């Protein structure tokens, strides 16, 4: 396939759109580089949007012109990389089935809350593709969740075409047949195009066509993406809703450069996946229950664990709502089910970066890569950890202390009533008596005491 085109102008665009500092230094934090060893009390230097130095504080001289972010006591990590997402678009499933000429660039909504949440959660790179309900669904692009326009957000284009085996009107077999037919149609078109071009050249050589005439027919605009796909110039991202469609998916991947985007219920197909060259994309819902038809017993399965055990490389997805929208939840779910912690982290950093052809740009904190990093209050796999700061290409894109929506979600709507010193009024009647309550409940005692969640005995 063609390498995706990291927009060389991205850094320039950024310089114009973001008040970028020439030199940014993040110091004092525990730097989890992902690709290399973790550095305690490390310094990351970012110059003109690229990381120029990652080392222990003692080994770095921070230029006096640098803007310095003190990350002491915090964790510094690369921003997360999401290899496949359909969120953040307005209408990601075209009603027509065969629409390879479309592009997500026309559907991405820079104002979508999902992008805002993604940034808030430390996601820095997102590959946006059309949804799973079109046969040949159009081209994707890689964006960062920051910017007022799609151009601002753009990181890389030409990232491939979406295909899907999800049965929409009609059955599963029909969908398989339709996809084969659609791909065959493209091949026939290419063959026809080549035949006509050859005929033109033959006729010209025979003198039937004037020698100064050139073949000026272009590949049909609406077919160009699909032609690139069948000629393996563009990668296909094939949605495989369940293990039942895997056979067809593997057959197609013999002919095309495909990445499989798996549905949730895939456990029966795991042995087949070991044959794939590329990592697979997992569904955002990593855990699911399966009921045994005979015994009616439920089993809890985790796709990440099944694939890790089978040695199939994978990347994680991020959901568009609920807990799966949090990277820490996705990683925690992996670890909870027995996936190695480092492997889980790589499935949201280095592995998707490589899959997107952006391994030299994102996914790790290393010299030469884009200056994308997040500063977290603690361990990235803990629920109580929050993303404090996100730096994208050397510019601060997010600061928790200045996050207006987070403030709104957490704000107390009305100022609390002034409480009498030393207690609250929980034990008093609502009469306006100023006397302190006789038995105030202690509030959130740090020693792990009863706290104030002690309700009255219902059997009283």
């Amino acid at each position, binding site marked *: 396939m063609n390498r995706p085109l990291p927009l060389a102008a991205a850094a320039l665009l950024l310089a114009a759109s973001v008040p970028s500092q020439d030199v940014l230094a993040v110091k004092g934090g525990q730097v989890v580089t992902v690709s290399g060893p973790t550095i305690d009390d490390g310094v990351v230097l970012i110059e003109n949007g690229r990381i120029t130095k990652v080392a222990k504080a003692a080994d770095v001289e921070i230029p006096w012109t640098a803007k310095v972010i003190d990350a002491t006591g915090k964790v510094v990590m690369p921003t997360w990389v999401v290899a496949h997402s359909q969120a953040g678009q307005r209408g990601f499933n075209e009603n027509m089935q065969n629409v390879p000429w479309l592009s997500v660039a026309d559907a991405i909504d820079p104002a979508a809350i999902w992008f805002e949440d993604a940034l808030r959660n430390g996601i820095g790179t997102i590959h946006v593709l059309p949804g799973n309900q079109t046969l040949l669904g159009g081209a994707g692009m890689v964006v960062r969740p920051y910017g007022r326009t799609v151009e601002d957000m753009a990181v890389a284009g030409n990232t491939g075409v979406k295909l899907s085996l999800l049965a929409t009107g009609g059955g599963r077999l029909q969908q398989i047949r339709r996809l084969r037919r659609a791909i065959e149609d493209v091949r026939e078109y290419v063959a026809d195009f080549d035949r006509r071009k050859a005929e033109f050249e033959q006729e010209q050589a025979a003198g039937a066509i004037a020698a100064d005439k050139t073949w000026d027919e272009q590949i049909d605009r609406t077919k160009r993406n699909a032609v690139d796909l069948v000629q393996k110039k563009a990668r296909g991202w094939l949605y495989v809703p369940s293990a039942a469609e895997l056979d067809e998916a593997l057959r197609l991947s013999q002919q095309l450069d495909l990445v499989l985007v798996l549905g949730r219920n895939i456990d029966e197909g795991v042995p087949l996946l070991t044959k794939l060259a590329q990592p697979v994309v997992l569904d955002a819902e990593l855990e699911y*229950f399966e*009921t045994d038809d005979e015994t*009616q017993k*439920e*089993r*809890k*399965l985790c796709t990440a664990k099944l694939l890790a055990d089978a040695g199939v490389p994978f990347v994680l997805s991020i959901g568009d*709502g*609920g*807990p799966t929208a949090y990277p*820490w*939840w996705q*990683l*925690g*779910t992996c*670890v*909870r089910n027995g996936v190695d912690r480092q492997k889980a982290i790589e499935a949201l950093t280095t592995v998707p970066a490589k899959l997107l052809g952006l391994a030299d740009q994102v996914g790790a904190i290393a010299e030469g890569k884009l200056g994308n990093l997040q500063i977290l209050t603690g361990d990235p*796999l*803990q*629920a*109580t950890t929050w993303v404090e700061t996100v730096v994208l290409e050397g510019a601060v894109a997010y600061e928790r202390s200045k996050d207006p929506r987070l403030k709104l*979600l*957490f*704000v*107390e*709507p*009305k100022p*609390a*009533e002034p409480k009498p010193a030393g207690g*609250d*009024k*929980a*034990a008093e009647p*609502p009469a306006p008596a100023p006397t302190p309550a006789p038995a*105030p*409940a202690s*509030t*959130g*005692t*740090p*020693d*792990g*005491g*009863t*706290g*104030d*969640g*002690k*309700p*009255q*005995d*219902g*059997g*009283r």
Partner: protein
Amino acid sequence: MSRLASVLVPFALGTALAAQTTVFTGARILPGGAPPIADGVLVVTGGRIAAVGDAATPVPDGAAIVDCRGRTITPGLIDASFRGGAAAGDLNEQGDEVTPHLRALDSLDPDDPALARARAAGVTAVHLMPGTRNVIGGLGCVVKTAGTDPAAMLVKADVSLRIVMGSEPSAENRAIRGGRVDSIYYRRPTTRMGVVWETRRAFHEAKQALELSLGATPAPPDRGREVLQRVLRGDLTAYTTARSEQDIRTALRIAAEFGYRTVIDEAQDAWVVADELLAAQVTVLLGAPSAAQVQGSAGRDGADPRYATAKLLADRGIPFVITTGTNTAALELVREAMFAARNGVAPAQAIDAVTIAPARLLGIADRTGSLAAGKDADFVVWSHDPLDPAAVAESVHIDGKPVPASR
């Protein structure tokens, strides 16, 4: 005499087996409502807790020892508002909109997969209430999550009377205006006004009957009315499901009007009406604090959940219990506690809100909800701190017996 012996012998054998002592050592113990024990010992004998303490706690001779180093032990979690899976549809009696005498216990299916999931996730007791499609749904009960016989699983019957405010009892109902007359949707009420009216009428009639019966011959028995009178007399706590600000206020108003005690269930908008909740001294059941939206049929109630609610309740001193509740997007109970902790509730309080706090609320704290000598041996051995997303319930014990895991 010989007959008596034949009865006694199996009993004696039973106690001998039950008296088997198991000791769990080396774990961090969060006893529930008490300070954590760093290197704790939990002694279990015959289905009950014999002792809980630090490493110096004496270990009885001949006891089986389970090494729990690196693990955390908590009391079994208690879900104070549990939505059964398969049984959920079976908990909405559509024969009438006011059914105070119906018992959720009678619909309990011990094989309900939702119970199996809950218990695999460390929940050892649940408060099962009738569904939310009736104005007054009926009586709730607390059951352990393992067992085959509802009677044996029962911890406490008749702990609550479910009342539902908001749009759910009237959803899809319509008046009979011609057409087919046998539709199940020909039910009253059809509006919020109607829901409130049905509640008021039921309590008014019960109150009237109660007053009439004083010093005179009792009014003709009516099973539903008798239950409402228990609420009016203070012998039974109402659990009023009220999500939106408007519905919470209504629930408090009706309770004050008739002078009965209520718990506010599913109080998603508690953050708006904190003052009123504090003044009314009610306990709040906070359903699925992880969810950003109310999912399912209750979505139209218009509640606006906020991440900060649990912390706000904690800061204001409003007693609250974390539940999975009616939200179809609810996670495992321990994850709901984790989200409360993420959003600012002290970790110890988040654990208390799914253990000792619901036990006290439901009146079962003498048996379960905390780890103390004499209580039922309902506890969970967690692989990590239970508020860590990586934590799994490695073993779950109900009445001292490990329950089969789901995987």
